[in-house]
Structure formats: structure tokens, C-alpha cells
């Protein structure tokens, strides 16, 4: 770990101003950032602790819900409105990490958590994300955790989180403020694909701070989060599926699906809803959905298994939601 300065932001403007400077990082729960600093993957000169800012509120806004950037994962998961109206979100959060970590982890920190690629976290290994131009150590190396969709020859890392996968299914928005402007982006567009600039995980510009995540009006339906992993807790997803499903008269009226563990971002493919909505649920239909989803999927040896696993997990979720018997 490198020595660093520590500043506590008392007001939002202060934070926004400080974080615009080079070598500065925001500190929220610290559960990801501090670990990476110990490994010297992150070497900020200054940490700006935003823990005191009043960004932790969860409040109704219009027909929807606004979850502050500093609301802890635990607070969000146990919020009665979240549990009632957006159960997929509560389920996704509770499927992640551990109670202790969730007590510290925040909404914004969770969205910005970095990949768990083993080469990324080992500074003696090449990694384009950590050190642009050094090469990707995972493509020919240990790629078990890695992406099968939307990869580039520069980086095949995944976004590792759970919460954001549910937020993608719910079509949430991310509120962002900088010193000069504020904006809001769809969560589905917040994380990026690696392309030629794998060091950029998301669309945040220097000096921008996430202030909240907003959820649209509740849509009800059947909401499921399914996370596949070899041990039953405290492990990142091999594959995960968030589903918000509506069924009327045995036809899909809604099929908002997002996938974790497959790509550099929570994966949302609008073609799936187009295919499913209006159709009668059946195993054959689910298979077609998987075909669409995985049309361009490509494995890197060790992670080839994710392609059949994603197909099976999607079918599992759709069977559970619709009652179709395999």
C-alpha cells in the first residue's frame, strides 16, 4: 500500500471539487477500494471520504424510488418498499458478499466495484485494465471467471456484482453529478464493454460522483434472482439471471431479463423481451431465447462452460417463473 492523504468531504461541492483532481478516489464503504489499495492495484494519492455526506436516504420519488448513493446494501435490501415492489433487487443484494460486507457496502461503491479478474488484482501480472498496454494475462491464462459476451481482444473481464444485474432488469437510472453538470444515465448504459479502453469500467468522467440510483414505478410480476456458484455463499456468480416476468392468460406480458457473470457489464439484450412477450411459455421458447442471448457468445477455454450454464440457468428461471415443467 502506498501512503496517501485522507480528506473527509463535509459537503457535496467539496467532494466534487476534490475528486476532479488527479490521483483522487472517492471512499464510500471501502470494501473494494481498500482491498485494492492493499494489493497496490489502486494507488490513489488522496482518498476523499464521502461517508458523511447525506446521500444515504431511500425515498419515494414520483412513482418510483430513489436510493441514495451511500445507502448501504443492507439498508436497501431490508427496505420494506424495496422488498415489496422490487423484490428482485433485495434478492440480488442478499445473494452477494456477506452480511458484514453488505453492512458497509454502498449503492455507488457496489456499482463501481472492480472486476475480480485474478490478473487484474496481481500487480506482477500483465493487465490492460490496470496497466494499459501491458497485455491481457487472462486470455491465455486463468479465465474461469471471465466473460463470454461482449469481450475484446484487449480484455475479457466481467463486471462481478449482483445488485446491478437486478437494476438492469428493473431499468433503473444512475444519477451523476459533477462540479459543472448533473446527468442521469440508464443503468443498462452505465457500465461499458472493454473494447480498446478496458481501463474504463463505466461512463463516469473524472470529477463525477454518483448521487443516487432511481427505480421506475413498480411493475409487479414475478421477480427472481438466480445466482449460480459452487459454494452457497460468499462467492461471485459464475452466471446469474435477474428476471421480472409478467404472465397473463398464459402469455408473457413482460420479460425483463439481465445477466451477470457473462460480460463486462450486466448484460441486457432487448431482443429477449421482444421474442418472449406475447408468446406462450414453453421449453422450446426458452431454448430460442437462449439461442438469441448466446448467439455471439465465445468461450476462452476455461470459461466455455458458461455458455451451456447460462442456457440452463435461463431455462431454470423461466420455468420457475412460468410453472413450465421440464
Amino acid at each position, binding site marked *: *500500500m502506498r501512503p496517501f492523504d485522507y480528506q473527509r468531504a463535509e459537503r457535496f461541492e467539496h467532494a466534487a471539487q476534490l475528486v476532479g483532481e488527479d490521483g483522487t478516489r472517492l471512499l464510500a464503504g471501502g470494501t473494494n477500494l481498500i482491498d485494492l489499495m492493499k494489493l497496490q492495484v489502486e494507488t490513489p494519492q488522496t482518498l476523499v471520504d464521502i461517508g458523511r455526506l447525506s446521500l444515504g436516504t431511500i425515498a419515494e420519488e414520483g412513482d418510483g424510488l430513489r436510493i441514495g448513493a451511500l445507502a448501504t446494501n443492507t439498508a436497501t435490501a431490508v427496505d420494506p418498499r424495496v422488498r415489496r415492489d422490487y423484490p428482485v433487487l433485495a434478492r440480488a443484494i442478499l445473494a452477494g458478499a456477506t452480511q458484514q460486507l453488505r453492512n458497509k457496502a454502498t449503492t455507488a461503491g457496489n456499482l463501481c466495484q472492480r472486476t475480480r479478474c*485474478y490478473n487484474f488484482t*496481481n500487480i506482477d501480472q500483465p493487465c490492460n485494465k490496470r496497466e494499459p498496454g501491458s497485455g491481457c494475462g487472462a486470455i491465455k491464462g486463468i479465465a474461469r471467471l471471465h466473460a463470454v459476451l461482449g469481450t475484446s481482444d484487449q480484455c475479457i473481464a466481467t463486471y462481478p456484482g449482483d445488485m446491478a444485474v437486478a437494476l438492469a432488469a428493473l431499468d433503473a437510472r444512475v444519477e451523476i453529478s459533477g462540479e459543472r453538470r448533473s446527468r442521469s444515465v440508464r443503468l443498462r448504459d452505465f457500465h461499458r464493454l472493454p473494447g480498446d479502453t478496458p481501463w474504463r469500467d463505466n461512463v463516469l468522467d473524472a470529477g463525477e460522483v454518483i448521487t443516487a440510483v432511481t427505480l421506475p414505478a413498480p411493475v409487479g410480476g414475478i421477480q427472481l434472482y438466480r445466482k*449460480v456458484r*459452487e*459454494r452457497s*455463499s460468499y462467492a461471485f456468480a459464475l452466471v446469474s439471471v435477474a428476471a421480472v416476468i409478467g404472465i397473463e392468460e398464459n402469455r408473457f406480458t413482460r420479460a425483463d431479463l439481465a445477466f451477470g457473470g457473462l460480460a463486462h457489464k450486466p448484460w441486457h439484450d432487448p431482443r429477449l423481451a421482444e421474442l418472449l412477450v406475447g408468446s406462450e411459455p414453453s421449453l422450446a421458447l426458452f431454448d430460442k431465447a437462449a439461442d438469441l442471448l448466446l448467439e455471439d457468445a465465445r468461450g476462452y477455454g476455461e470459461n466455455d462452460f458458461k455458455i451451456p450454464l447460462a442456457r440452463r440457468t435461463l431455462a431454470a428461471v423461466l420455468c420457475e417463473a412460468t410453472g413450465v415443467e421440464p
Partner: protein
Amino acid sequence: MSVHLKQDKPDTRNVLDTMAQGVIGADLPRPEGLIKVTGTAIYAAEYRADGMLEGVLVTAPVVRGEIASINEASVLGMPGVRAVISDKRMTGRPAQGTAGEAPFQPAREVCYWGQPVALVVAETFEQARDAAKRLALDWHGTGDAPLDPEAAETEKDESTRKGDLAHAMAEAAHTVDVTITTEGHASAAMEPHAALAQWDGRTLTVHASLQMLKYNRAELADSLKLEEEQVRLVSPYVGGGFGSKLGISQEVVAASLAAMQLGRPVRVVMSRQQVFQTIMRRSETRQRIRLAADAEGRLTGFGHEALVSNLPGEDFAEPVLQSSQFLYGGDNRLLKLDLARIHRMTAGSVRAPGEAVGVQTVEQAMDILAEKLGMDPIALRLRNLPDAHPAKGTPFSSRKLAECLEEGAKAFGWEPRPRAPRHTREGEWWIGTGVASAARVHAVVEAKARVTLRPDRTALVETDMTDIGTGTYTILGQIAGEMLGLMPDDIDVRLGDTDFPPGSGSGGSWGAPSCGSAVFLACEGLRKDIARRLDIGTDDLTLKDGLARWDGGETALADILGGEPLDCIGHFEPGSSIEDATVSSFGAFFAEVAVNRWTGETRVRRMTGAFGIGRVLSARTARSQCLGGMTWCIGNALTESLMFDPVDGHLANCDLAEYHVPVHRDVPALEVLLLEERDAAASPIQAKGVGELGLCGGAGAIANAIYDACGARVFAYPMTPDRVIAAMPDI
């Protein structure tokens, strides 16, 4: 006073059974339990000394090469940095268990990725850590570094040949021929390796986390070129060892060298990543099992061939075949172990070396054979228990394997086979059960302990033996209490200091039978002396609740002592009693699993283990050892694997977030049955080892349960979802 026994004959006197106190084997709490759970037991990394400096190890980012230069100037100017130690005596690898001599001191030759090559010492830990990462190393590669055990050169390590296995296979009514792989395991002890070294110009005192102080002292003295008398090691509490602390490792030597060079105390604590990257691994294995059986299921041939790996220059080869030598019969036998030389960190003892991965493969093969025969797998096992060691002919000193299979089956509610898999489904989950035998060779080693009876009705037990969480404090108190007629609360057990008489160390499940016997012998000496003072025969003496009784008399122990303490050193040495017999612990595992039809995720729903471990010295700690072992079975079967990079050989998953030991939710209710035995050949206290038996075969029961549940025969451990779905007939 001292009592020495080299045990050449079985001890059938069962002396502990003739005592009166009634605490041996009882379910009593650990004397150190309270201070451990309240965080007041002090572990190696928590000691402090005045003027203490902090050292951080610098590791080489290369799999094979030579460090051409270490640019000390690159960090010596940094705040707080006091020295860069790269003394020729630095050790590059941990010492193997019971080595008793310096481990490899390679100077600047690097043999595996992450090998420590220097130590940066500074005033604070943060300064040392920062500087350690900045230390500039120049290195160059030195030739090939084979990384893949399948492609590397191999050496023959061990083989047993009897009859003609190939012929038996050709003639057999039923055969099984399977190849099963297991991946590398880490000990993954909770407490990281740490040492605080202090040098007063003549003697070196090191607080460290170690399992076998007698050997460790010799290893450290030899590494530093000191006399053993100049070295004192202190290790009263150890937060798990599992083999990783059998021998000294790099931080102990580095801290000592720095303390000696700088004349100030130096503490070195390995990071979690360093523990994973530089300490012993359990070798991955590839095992071929061949079984030949007649129409009734009697084995006519048994083959077990294994490939394991280690670094060049290391003798240790994961002894995969150990229990296969005698677990099942079959006249035609071929057992063969090959060792591949590759450049991964040192392979050495990880809890239950050999059987921890060697029994489960045999147990899978037996399950397949039972299915081919249309037999119940328990019946098949019972039919094939040999009368004596199949190759050596030595009789079993005790073997409750049949009883464990039968009693365990009853407790578990085993449903007899044959039955086809996929008989039970609950929602998405296929439910199935499996059985496996357990076996672990028994070992004892030389051990000494001093027991002092004190006039205040208490006793003191001293040995350099360690308690690595296993329960040594508890059992030694119970043995001494039983023999001396005192409650364990009145026995002060002191461990983990080379100033005490040298014990056996914790390893190979031999701690309890070896050190327990030393304490027992010391107590026998004390009893004899008391009887002499009372002028009665030792057999006529009863000690209970601080009183000595004999036919017609009774007096307080304190009165006999006349105000003076009375001590005796017990000295136990193994002799031919364990060579004239086949001495081993046995047991049986039963597991119920649920396998997800879609994802192949496997969860263990319940497990029963029945074990014969000789005399049970403490019901509580023996049970805990079995619970821990069975938990390891779950990790071994389903999640644990060291992942080495195929390109440069570095270990990728080197922390507890990514090396997946089971979490609480993975470990269901575990049931443990302990079947009492008295094994007269095993030790004078009739106890065998228990620390490792609980993980020797149980992963096979889980594998067999996966098959019974969903029809997937998986031949690679751990059985992760990807492997299960690849082997699973359709949803």
C-alpha cells in the same frame, strides 16, 4: 525421576480403564476455550517487543530464474526503512515436516513464482510494506520451468507389485478402470504465518506459529548456523496449521536474520497472498484405479497408480497409496506412485497427506463396482476386508471398519441398493446418498513430557508439544487428571515452548497418542513413587479427588508430598509394536446431497461419520476433529482447488475470497459416531490418531451421492457445477 518406554509390545493392561477419577474420554470443555473466543489468547503476530521493527518479505515475480541484483538503494532512503536483508541464509522454501534441518537456502536462485528473496525492515509495517513493493530486483530467467505435471519428467517414487493385475483384469467377471483427478489444496489456516524474533547477542527467542517445535528449533538453528541451545521457540497458541506449519517457513528465518543483524526485535507477518504463494501446497493428483472382481464381488485384483508433483530437490511425494495398501483385498496388486518435477511452490503435508485424496478415488471405484455387481456398496466393502495386510501379512491391531459401516448405516438411515439414480427429486433438486470407507495410517513418534504434582493438589504438565486448535490442552489434562486422581481444572497444561521437554509436535495425527503416552508414562512414574512412599503396591493404589486410597487406608496427596513438588519426565518412543501389526484408524462416511438439475450446483444436506480411533481421550475434541475433517471433505469434493496459471505458473487464487473453503451454509448438520476401541499396539494409552481420519474418503461419499442423485459420474475433484453438468444426463 523419569520413565522411558520404547513400545515393542502391545500394552493390553488398559491402565487408564482401571483408574478412578472418571475424566478420561469425558465430554469436557477446553481449558483455553474462553481466552480463545474472547480474543485474549495471544497469537504469533500479536506479540510486541520494545523497539520492535517490522519486516515484509519481497517475493520474486518469476517462476524460474536468478536474482542478479537487489538494488537496496532503491528503498533505503525511504522514511523508516532500516535494512534490506538478503542474507545467504534466507530460506526459499518451507521445511518439510520433521526435517529437523535447514530447508533449501537457494541464495538467489528462484524456483517458483512468489519465492521470497529479501526482507525489507522498517520502523512501521506500512513503511516496510510500501518499500517491499518498491524494491528493485534484477533477475534473469534460467532455463525451462516445466509447469504441467502431465508433461514433465517423472520419477518413480514407490511401487508394490504382487501377482498379475493385468491378467486378473482380463479374467474377472467385473472390472472397473477409472482415472480420477484431484487439484491442489491449500492448508488455508486462519492464522497467517508470523514470527517475532529477538536476539540478545547469545540467544534467539522467536514467537512463531509452528506445529513441531523440537524439529523447528533444529531447522532454525541449522539455517542460521547457531547451536540448538541458542534458539528458543514459543508457540502456545496456533490458529490452525493443517501441515502448513510442520516445518519452519521463510518468515521465521528472515525475522531471525534481521533481528540478529540489527540488534532489535523484528516481526514478520506474511500476507494472506504470501501464505498461499509460498507455503506448502497439497499436490494435484491423477489416479488410476483398477478393480477386478469375481461374480460374487470378491476382489481378485486391485490397482492404484498415481501421479503427483513437487519442485526439483524435494523428496516429499503426496503418499496417495498409503491406505490402499491394506484397505481392501485382492491377490493381484499393483500400486505405483510417480512424481513429476514442476515449478510450483513446494508440495508438502496438508492435513492427511495421502489419504485425504487417495481414499476417495478408491471409494468411487468401489461404488461403480457395486453397481456393476448389483450389490449394496456396503456389502461389497464388507466382503473385501482383508484378514491381514495383503502384501505384508501383518494382522490388524484393531479395525472397526465393518462396525463403522454397519452402525453408521443405521444412524444415517441407509437405504440398501441396488437402485437406479434419479429416484428422488424435490423441486429442482435431485436427492441422493453415498457411502465411503475411511482409513488413515497410524503413526507415533518420540515424545517427552514432564508432570509435576504440586502440594496444593494441582499438577503441572509441560511439553513443547503444540495445540493447533486440536485439543492438546484438553486431552493432556484429562490423561493426567485420570492418572493422578485430579479434575482437569486442577491440571495446568503448558505447551509450545522449547524450554519444556521436547514432545512430538502436532502432525500426522500422532500428537495425542505420542504426547499423551509421554504424559501417561510420567504419571505412571509418579504413581509408583507415591505407592513406594505409602509402602504399598502400585496396583493397590487408587488416586481420586486429591486422595490416595488403598485397602485399609486413605490420605491426602498433599500429605504424601510433604510440601514438596514431585515431578517425573515421561519419555515415549515407538518400537516394534506398530511394525508387527497393521495399525490404522478406520471409519465410514455417509452423505446426502442435493444436485440442481439445471445448474449442477451440489449442496451437502447431511453427513454421518462413524470412526474407530482407539481410545477416545476426550469426547468433545475427538468429535470436533471429526467435524473439521468432514467439513474438509465438503471442500475437497465440491469447491477447493488451487489454480495455477498455465503461462507463467503463478497461483491465481491466493486469498480466502477466491480459494473456496466451505462457508457455514455449505456445512449442514454433521453427525459423528465414535466407536470405542482399545488398540494395544498403537500406544500405551490404546489411542490411535483422530486428527486426519475425518477427511480420508468422505469426498468419495459425496461423489457417490452425486451419482445416486442425478446419474453423473464425475471423475474430477472438485465437482463444481460445470463438471457436474458436463457429466449429467439431460435435465
